[in-house]
């Protein structure tokens, strides 16, 4: 599904540069649910951004679904992001002047689908996250948990191969966090491959595999017994 070889990334800081990723090797199979952990500055978000094609590596190899991701033009990156990836952000990143349905349907717009089809699919995914009745509400009329569920519906709308979540529960209280994790687990049960960055141990333990980063290198990569979030809900 996803294969990374000797990935390097540094950021220029003034005259010197900060070496953030120092040779990452990682391979993820379809259907996995992986947590990337590490303290701040360990490079976990940078890794996720490179995987999400939001950022480019300086060196190394990245193959996603047998497609080498290299030297992408902006246009090509846009097409790949749309086709392969679904994003879930800590701060939801919904467009505040669009209602829930329009937000969910936006990736479909960039796929070139007809409006009727977009509405149909958008409603289907909103129903899946249990917010069909909220379809015509603006983001600021929704609670944090509801916003994140709209964001998840949006990430699912384009039917991506890989879901990328950057601290998906970071802005939520414990109870809502568990609800969201329960939902993400059910997506994984249906076969979606999920990669998430978190620094909370209990959230990480709800994944099937934990990759720990420190100072730009992987220091631990273990498969764990998944804790089901449903027991807390």
């Amino acid at each position: 599904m996803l294969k990374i070889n000797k990935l390097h990334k540094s950021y220029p800081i003034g005259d010197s540069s900060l070496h953030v990723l120092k040779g990452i090797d990682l391979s993820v199979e379809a259907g996995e649910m992986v947590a990337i952990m590490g303290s701040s500055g360990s490079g976990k978000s940078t890794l996720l951004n490179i995987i999400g094609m939001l950022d480019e590596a300086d060196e190394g190899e990245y193959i996603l679904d047998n497609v080498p991701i290299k030297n992408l033009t902006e246009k090509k990156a846009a097409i790949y992001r749309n086709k392969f990836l679904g994003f879930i952000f800590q701060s939801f990143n919904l467009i505040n002047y669009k209602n829930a349905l329009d937000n969910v349907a936006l990736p479909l717009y960039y796929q070139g689908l007809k409006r009727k089809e977009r509405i149909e699919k958008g409603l289907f995914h909103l129903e899946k996250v249990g917010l069909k009745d909220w379809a015509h509400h603006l983001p600021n009329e929704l609670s944090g948990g509801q916003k994140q569920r709209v964001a998840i519906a949006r990430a699912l709308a384009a039917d991506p191969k890989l879901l990328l979540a950057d601290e998906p529960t970071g802005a939520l209280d414990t109870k809502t966090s568990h609800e969201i994790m329960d939902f993400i687990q059910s997506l994984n049960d249906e076969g979606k491959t999920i990669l998430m960055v978190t620094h909370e141990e209990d959230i990480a333990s709800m994944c099937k595999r934990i990759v720990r980063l420190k100072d730009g290198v992987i220091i631990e990569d273990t498969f764990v017994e998944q804790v089901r979030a449903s027991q807390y809900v």
Partner: protein
Amino acid sequence: MFDRDLWREIFQSINMNRTRSLLSGFTVAFAISLFAILFGIVNGLVNTFDSAFADDASNSIFVQSGMTSKASNGLQAGRRIQFKNEDQAWIKEEFGDKVQYITSRVYLNVIATFRNEKSNYSIRAVNPDHQYLENTKVTYGRYVNESDIKNKTKVVVIGRLVEEDLFLKTTAIGKYINLNGIQYKVVGVFSDDGGDNEERLIYMPISTAQQIYGNNDYVDQINLTYNPEMNFDAAIGFSNLLTKKMKDRFMVSQNDQRAIRVRNLANESKAINQFTFILGFLVLVIGFGTLIAGIVGISNMMIFIVKERTKEIGIRKALGASPKSIVSIILLESILVTIIAGFVGLVIGMGVVEFAGPFLEKYFIKDPSVSLSIVVGAAITLILAGAIAGYLPAKKASRIKPIVALRDD
């Protein structure tokens, strides 16, 4: 560009961000309406001056006579100078090509009657060239011609208001009008931009007037126009020479200011031309000024809009928006707002000029008007400038890395 979904996106964005759209629209509408109003006012000023001097040809020279105020050549002061037909012929002969049109005038006052209508009028008995000197427009019929002069025919050309006064609603052409007891045939009716007084005049052949009212060849005034190819200095030189030669001809002292007076309109029209030129220059400055202010306003607005939408752009890019779609959504939105606002500004500006116009005449602003094409041109310039000014920030926005745009701060 004519993608319906794209326009739906744009309308949604305009509709949901009303403050932003209204503010940027206001800048444009304000610039365009100000442009139209200022342009209209200056045009009104120009019209006032044009019409004030539309009466006579601007290259006219008037030669009048009076009493001598100084003794000269052994003759005493207080002698009356009288021009005659031969003086007109002499000027024409002396100066040849430098004279474009020339005419003499005899003034008379008459009581004119037609059937039961009766009124007092001034008569100008003239040569055919007078028509061009006075910018007389013959509405129907004809003007005094050479054959009238030769045959001393009893014909008159009457002003529009004379016809109105005496002939009421009927046409005057071919009818006979009674001037102090003598019947004259009306052969023409004229109008004149010089005002009502100019249209209450009656013209007749000068030879007819000389025979009937004095049986002499006296002339009250000689009017001429100089060759329009002469520049200002040549025209002044010409009238100075004319003055000098006329004074010699009548044996008048060269420094006698009363006996022979020559008035050259070139002196006045030069001042008017300068004034009109300055007004025209003012129009340009105003036009450019408002347009540049509008362009700067739009550019600022575009930069602000792109800044405000950075996060949205990042989200869109993360969801698969191509750079091209980002540029078009931002640019088309601003162009649409500019077009609508430009149209509103155009309607407001032209409306103000149209409705306030009639009340401004007492402030020397006559028929202020702006041609639609100028305002539309200004609006298009503004829209194009806005598009160009907006393209750079939009292009820059399309290159923003989503990761930068989405960073929480």
